[in-house]
């Protein structure tokens, strides 16, 4: 378990503030955010490398705030791996074992190195120097090295950033498998929300040194709480505008209203008036070739500008006076014979528009 309690870390002019987060035992949490949002600094603070201005760090209910990194019992895989260049692959992996708590003898150490090498399919590399290993191989060695002393907590800093897409997929799957087998509480940093959706139980979006939103990846993706999060996780179309109350509706909470922005006027269900962003998920826009009779929906007429096929889904880039992205299954895209220039109507329920 990792619990961060109102952390404040200062590095140069940069402040990481009010960071509170709890990763349950055996959980897999991801910190995502754009470059410069403070992700790595956060990991360094958890590891004990960065000095805290305020706040406390707990691991398994123990307050480790004052402990140096070597006494926190964690593994850390860095973005650039940072393998020890003067040691062989075997000695890199074995480095931490001799210094771990229940220090093992030479034979036990060799056994553990072999076990990890086998698990990560790097047995053939054991006697090689680390120079000349490929990105994927370095990443496996770095992971084996971090896991060798059997840490109960694993910190990963963009572990897949430096490997090609195919290797990334394989490694991701292996990492998730490894996590489930070893039951290590894991905290990973990434700038890629896709990774969070595939790996994490919990995700925290970091923006300019603060947690903008945290929750399950699904929650954050479906219900972003700000335009920043919606754009960053790629929820869908984000349009800036103003919400007005429909004169006839005087309910206090969740009233019917009108959103004007980006050249569109949409019926919405709102909780407050004023400047807001409308977030429209592509899958909530129903496309048809002729106007839909259903009056409970917003109808947006426009033309298809471009089709983008993503496997079984096709993203339809529409021009409705402004760009808007809708998604349909590739099958229905073919049935409707969608192609650039076709006139379509996008229908959208008022309740499907998220106002943030």
């Amino acid at each position, binding site marked *: 378990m990792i619990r961060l309690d109102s952390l404040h870390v200062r590095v140069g002019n940069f402040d990481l503030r009010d960071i509170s987060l709890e990763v349950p035992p055996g959980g897999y949490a991801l910190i995502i955010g754009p470059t410069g949002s403070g992700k790595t600094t956060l990991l360094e603070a958890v590891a004990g490398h960065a000095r805290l201005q305020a706040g406390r760090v707990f691991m398994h209910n123990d307050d480790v705030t004052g402990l140096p990194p070597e006494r926190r019992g964690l593994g*850390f895989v860095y973005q650039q791996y*940072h393998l020890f260049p003067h040691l062989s692959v075997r000695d890199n992996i074995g480095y931490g074992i001799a210094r771990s708590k229940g220090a093992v003898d030479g034979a036990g150490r060799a056994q553990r190195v072999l076990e990890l090498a086998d698990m990560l399919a790097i047995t053939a590399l054991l006697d090689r120097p680390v120079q000349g290993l490929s990105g994927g191989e370095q990443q496996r060695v770095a992971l084996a090295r971090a896991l060798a002393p059997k840490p109960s907590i694993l910190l990963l800093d963009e572990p897949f950033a430096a490997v090609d897409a195919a290797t990334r997929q394989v490694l991701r799957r292996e990492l998730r498998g490894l996590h489930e087998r070893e039951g290590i509480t894991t905290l990973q940093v990434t700038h890629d929300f896709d990774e969070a959706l595939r790996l994490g139980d919990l995700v925290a979006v970091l923006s300019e040194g603060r947690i903008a939103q945290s929750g399950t990846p699904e929650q954050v993706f479906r219900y972003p709480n700000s335009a920043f999060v919606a754009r960053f996780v790629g929820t869908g179309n984000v349009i800036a505008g103003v919400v007005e109350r429909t004169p006839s509706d005087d309910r206090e909470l969740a009233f019917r209203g009108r959103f004007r922005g980006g050249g569109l006027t949409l019926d919405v269900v709102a909780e407050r008036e004023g400047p807001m962003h409308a977030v429209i998920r592509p899958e909530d826009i129903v496309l048809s070739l002729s106007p839909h009779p259903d009056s409970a929906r917003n109808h947006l007429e426009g033309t298809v500008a471009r089709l983008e096929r993503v496997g079984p889904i096709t993203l339809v880039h529409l021009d409705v006076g402004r760009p808007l992205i809708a998604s349909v299954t590739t099958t229905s895209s073919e049935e409707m014979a969608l192609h650039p220039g076709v006139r379509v109507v996008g229908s959208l329920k008022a309740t499907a528009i998220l106002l943030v």
Partner: protein
Amino acid sequence: MPVSSLWSRLVLAGLSACLVLFVVGPLLRLLWESSPQSLIEALQDSELQASITLTVLTASMATFLAALLGIPLAYLLARRPFPGRRIVQGIIDLPVVIPHPVAGIALLLFLGRRSPVGGALADLGLEFVSHVPGIVAAMLFVSAPILVSGAREAFRAVDPQLERVARTLGDTGWGAFRRVTLPLAGRGILAASILAWARSVSEFGSIVILTYNPKVASIYIFDRFTAFGLQSAIPAAVILLLVALTVFIMVRVLQPQERA
């Protein structure tokens, strides 16, 4: 510098060759002047033997002291930003620009019996002027900057993140330094130490003021030259040159290759 025409390339090559010949020429001339027999004879001279032994021992002592005090300083300069770091760096580099006799006079005033420091040390039995410790002190003064700057660069070349990795693998700060940074910076530090040692062996200007006797090799050669003339100084000079060349080759082998 972009090289365009054949003419400009010839000029460049010509000027460069002049300087290279100017360095190599005198050294070759000196080696040419000696015969193996004269060298063997010179080596049998007990006075020369004593001076070479003294030179090697004092230079080794000065290098040991420079390493003991200089490696921690080099690490600080490379890794830890502290107030006044630039000033400390400047002070350490200072001996490089001070003429050696000036350094000798300054050391004489500082370590002489009549100064508070020299007096106190003399009371403890450590005499510098006209004693062996004076040679070591002069050598340390001129060679420490070489060791410190070399070691500092060696530490700078080691990724500081590696120590952090070692910490997360259970090493203490000292353990991470000893097992990661020191081995990685080791070659560079060794090269810097050998250079500092060679600088100590070649020192003349400050030692001649502080401790003329007992004579280190450079003073011995000067003494032979002024007392008995050129021919008498040549064999000892050649021997010292060979020692210097050996050290130079060792450093070249140890130093990381320059990038083309």
